[in-house]
């Protein structure tokens, strides 16, 4: 047994016509921000629903916070924000939140205090206007999203699962959500979120798992993933633009595998076994004035494109790299 917040072993889920999740295993370390990445229809939501025991996997086992996910009471320690969001329209905001807290075993008195604090914190309750006593459908979409975040976090869960949390958020709410995730991480809460937006994942996640067509493509800590799957890249900028004398250097297959010229900077992928120090020396020897020469890691975006594209091409042959 590991000390993982979530430990998924070989789960599969089959629906009438297709396989939603196939033999998936992953471990989410406690206290980490974990990204579940994949294109639409990859099986992210199905995986999340199985974690929360909303649907049962056909095979395999899931351990949440050290207990089987089917154990009674374990989901009380988890907060969940589904992809499709909504609240009872005709209910007062405070009453909805109190109900959600009560479902997680929070006494109404405790809940009321926390609700007031949260409403003030997200700006839904001030001396001028208290949206807490308004009906849900009187709130704007952005306000309803805030209420939904509060409902997810009110019972101070040890594990928070957010399904596509950034979809449909305006930049202000997206920023607020990002701040909340960072703060949760700081207080020791484990956060899992699914997304297909790599920029968010790259900024926030400690570790990721990329899935496509219900199968795991790769997983691990971001740094490890980049080191392992990225290859080696150099960002290069020259003072007077690319000199003609540089062309033979860049075309040397022993040094350079591929160049992506973006005008101001060039992204150079080193050839296998090539030494970046030798490349730098060769460039300077060719007479170019180097402004920037930096060893960089590839973006998650690039890894995602490479790997998911590859998995697509290799579908049904040998799985993943």
């Amino acid at each position, binding site marked *: 047994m590991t000390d993982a917040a979530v430990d998924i072993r070989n789960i599969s889920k089959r629906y009438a016509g297709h396989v939603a999740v196939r033999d998936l295993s992953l471990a989410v370390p406690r206290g980490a921000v974990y990204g579940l990445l994949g294109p639409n229809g990859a099986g992210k939501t199905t995986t999340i629903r199985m974690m929360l025991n909303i649907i049962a996997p056909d095979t395999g086992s899931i351990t949440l916070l050290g207990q089987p996910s089917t154990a009674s009471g374990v989901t009380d320690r988890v907060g969940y924000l589904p992809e499709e969001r*909504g609240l009872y329209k005709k209910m007062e905001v405070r009453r909805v939140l109190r109900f959600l807290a009560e*479902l997680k075993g929070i006494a109404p008195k405790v809940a009321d205090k926390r609700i007031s604090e949260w409403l003030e914190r997200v700006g839904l309750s001030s001396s001028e206007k208290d949206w807490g006593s308004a009906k849900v459908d009187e709130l704007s979409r952005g306000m309803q999203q805030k209420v939904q975040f509060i409902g997810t976090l009110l019972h101070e869960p040890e594990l928070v699962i957010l399904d596509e949390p950034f979809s449909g958020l305006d930049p202000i709410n997206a920023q607020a959500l990002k701040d909340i995730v960072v703060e949760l991480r700081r207080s020791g809460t484990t956060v899992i979120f699914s997304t297909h937006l790599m920029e968010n994942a790259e900024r926030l996640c400690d570790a990721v798992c990329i899935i496509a067509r219900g199968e795991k493509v790769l997983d691990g800590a971001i740094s490890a993933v980049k080191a392992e799957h990225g290859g080696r890249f150099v960002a290069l900028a020259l003072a007077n633009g690319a000199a003609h004398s540089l062309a033979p250097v860049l075309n040397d297959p022993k040094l350079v595998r591929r160049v992506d010229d973006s005008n101001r900077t060039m992204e150079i992928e080193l050839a296998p076994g090539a030494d970046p120090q030798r490349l730098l020396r060769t460039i300077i020897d060719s007479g170019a004035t180097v402004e920037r020469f930096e060893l960089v890691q590839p973006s998650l975006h690039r890894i995602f494109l490479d790997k998911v594209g590859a998995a697509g091409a290799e579908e049904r042959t040998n799985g993943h790299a």
Partner: protein
Amino acid sequence: MAMRKLWATTKREYLERVRTKWFIVATVFGPVLFGAIAFLPSVMAMRTKASTNFAHIAILDATGTDLGRRVTRALAADSAYAAAGPMLRIIDPKELTVAESLATHEVMRKQATGYLVLDEQTMAGETARYAGRNASSLTDVDRVQSAVRKGLLAMRLEQAGIDSTKVQALTGPQLSLDAERITDQGRGGSGTVSVIFGFAIAFLLYMSILLYGQNVLHGVIEEKSTRMAEVIASSVPPDTLLAGKVLGVGAVGLTQLAVWLITAYALFKVRVPLLAKLGVHSTALPLPSISVGLALLLVAFFVLGYIFYASLFAAVGATVSNEQDVRQAATPVTLLLVATIIFMEPILLDPTSQLAVVMSWLPFSSPIIMPLRLSVISLSPLVIAGTMAVLIVGCIASVWLAARIYRVGLLMYGKRPTMREVVRWVRYAG
């Protein structure tokens, strides 16, 4: 743990419904309706009596006898608010047509309410004619008719040589018929009262089951369409959510029925003294005599019937994603209820028929048919226990079925599943 969550969902269903304007209006309006039923007839009767007092009726007597005088006397005695009695006009048969058109004009100008024509056809015992504004009032016409009959009878008896005081004594009695019901337990209450009561109970049960069953249905759809279902499903097993919904809405129904029945009972109790204060004399409306045992049985049948139908409605709700599909999807369940109500009247008229017996044993009709029969006839404890046991088995089956459909359907969106798909949900859920 599970109980605490069941309590939380039940409480929400109950409180959110009880807080709505609809509930408050319906709960208050119910007693107002009962009040109207208890008070209006007496008040209306007082008003109609005043307007149709027979002082404003003209009697055109073209018989050449004293029949007109006799009828006038009989009507005057019947008219509580008019000492004067109707206006009697002795008419020559030849001038009857003129007198009639004159009387018609009087009625049109509201100088008279109507007029009665007595002619040789009346003397022959065939017809008398009445025309007037109150011609559609059955009681008025009935009274005029019996006054004419009585007068004619008295006249013929006297012509046959019977002494006029004797005739008075002989034709005097005003007879009314009191019908009383006899059951296995002996005589009990009025026959009509128990039929009306049986009908009212059955109809009330039908309305309540339909109303609150649909309430459950729309509750499920609301949770699906607002996507609240998924948030709740991450905290509460679907079965608990389903149970909380059925129990919460059921409690709302019982609350409303209790408020209605208590106010109705209280209103019937204070009706006579209250009307007396308003200056209206009335007799106490007969209340059906219900034993505590019967009352408990009625409640038990209501609760079981509600559980049976509410679970089915919840299952229907889980199979649809939007309000547009609801009506079509709910039709099979609604049909079961409507089929029951169609047979209410024949069963009420013959509560021991083959039809009545069969429908008492079917779980979908017994919650309505059994209370109906119980309030008009008495049934053996064996039959009551047996039908209730079958109904309980029916409830268990319907709850089981609903839980399985609900569990899968709660997170299904989009196209409505076919019957075959629903069967597969039932088979594989687990």
